[in-house]
């Protein structure tokens, strides 16, 4: 059997998974946005150099500054997702402990997307451009309307949250098996240490010493 105690216990966790989860989240929510922003800035600068851009140099500078601002904003909003990905990776699939973190991850990601694009319309203020011929330009605003894309992304994020339940159901047996194997290993270690000398703990874990008969059944 899978042993006793809450599934939130660190004894039933997988530290390697936590590291993997955190690395994956850092890549998704920090490195990829930075790369994407660098790509956009690179495209804009290349189009300026090649003379194919419609924008003036002042506009471009202001626009690039805005893009970096939005990137920094996304990273700061998505910061908690990196933290949540640690317990998500820490608790293996099929564990009850993973469900709340998975749900939170999906819903918070949806919230981040909605906040980041102000519900779907992102407005970038390019600033004033001076003027000539009796017309002075006070401000230029670019509004990108990605409402439809954003709501699809939000639905995907929420679906990812609910997918935690399906994941739990699909991996529950594997998880319990993994726990049994883990317990078995501990028991074997405990038995081995018992033959070497009396010891009731293995590492930090308290281990119940069970005498095992030859047929594998616990002794009465």
């Amino acid at each position: 059997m899978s042993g006793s105690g809450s599934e939130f216990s660190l004894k039933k966790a997988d530290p390697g998974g936590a590291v993997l989860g955190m690395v994956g989240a850092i890549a998704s929510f920090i490195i990829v946005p930075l790369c994407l922003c660098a790509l956009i800035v690179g495209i804009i600068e290349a189009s300026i150099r090649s003379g194919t851009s419609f924008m003036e140099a002042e506009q471009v500078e202001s626009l690039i500054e805005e893009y970096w601002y939005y990137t920094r904003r996304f990273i700061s909003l998505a910061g908690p997702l990196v933290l949540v990905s640690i317990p998500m990776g820490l608790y293996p699939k099929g564990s009850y402990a993973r469900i709340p973190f998975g749900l939170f991850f999906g819903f918070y990601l949806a919230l981040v997307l909605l906040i980041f694009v102000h519900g779907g319309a992102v407005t970038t203020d390019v600033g004033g451009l001076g003027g000539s011929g009796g017309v002075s330009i006070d401000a230029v605003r670019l509004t990108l309307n990605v409402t439809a894309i954003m709501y699809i992304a939000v639905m995907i994020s929420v679906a990812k949250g609910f997918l935690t339940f399906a994941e739990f159901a699909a991996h529950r047996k594997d998880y319990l098996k993994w726990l049994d194997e883990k317990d078995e290993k501990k028991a074997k270690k405990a038995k081995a240490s018992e033959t070497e000398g009396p010891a009731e703990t293995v590492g930090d874990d308290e281990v119940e010493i069970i005498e095992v008969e030859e047929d594998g059944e616990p002794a009465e």
Partner: protein
Amino acid sequence: MKLSYTVPKLAIAAASVALGLVVLTSVLPLLSGGLAIDETEAGSGLQMEIEGVNMVIRGDYTVRSSLPYDINDAYLRITLGKPGGARMTVYDGEAFDVPKGGSAKVVINEEIFLPTVMMVAVANHDSGKLTIPATVSVGGVYLDRLTGLGVEVDMLIDVSNESGVAIEAGMVPTADGKDYQSFDIDVTVDVEELGGITIPMEDGVPIEAKFGDTTITLVKNGNSISLDGVSAGTGIIGDILGSEEIVVTGHDPITVTEEQKAELAEILSAYLAEYPDGIPLGDIPSLGGVL
């Protein structure tokens, strides 16, 4: 592994990838400046000129796209008035399409009754000139309306420079000491240089334009016409929409078409709708009360 898990997981992964591709192919080119609006010829940009009792707005623009998809339902809209304040749309052309990597021309030629324009004009302390705040909006949607881009340009159009008409603006300082405020009264338009246009009236006689219980008063002195005052009561929107005739006291009426009256009535109603309890003019002591 159970299908109840793998199928939705694969579906979500596929949707994520598809969405990523849409963003890469549609949103990135937009962010890289793939849509622009330029003057078709040098100097063919937005111009406002006073012609008789009308303000004429002209402009010839080309919308250029370097986007990988056609832009549908593109629009060009011109709004007068300060952002955040009372505004009036003076041009809202028909929607048009811009082909991928192509361009489309937009020609503006609109006439607006002068007092209507004056309601949103602003006088600038620094330059001493009368300017009209305007916003030119251009945009469109594409990729089956999945994405859209709009560009709004806030500009101040110097009426005197553009029209060749000297304008004296009576400044009305605001209570909070701002540089300018929406123009309401005491603007004088010197029409001397308007190519021989003669104002068919004697000097010093007020001209009243009445719409329901709203009255716009103009005064002619020499070759100048002054907008002397605007009065508006409450509950007049319905009356304005059924606009009455424009009267010139004791003189021949100004030729104003029914279309102009209807336009003014419509714009006035939208303007006045912002002030259901009447226009607060406490900051304008020269009028001595609420109009």
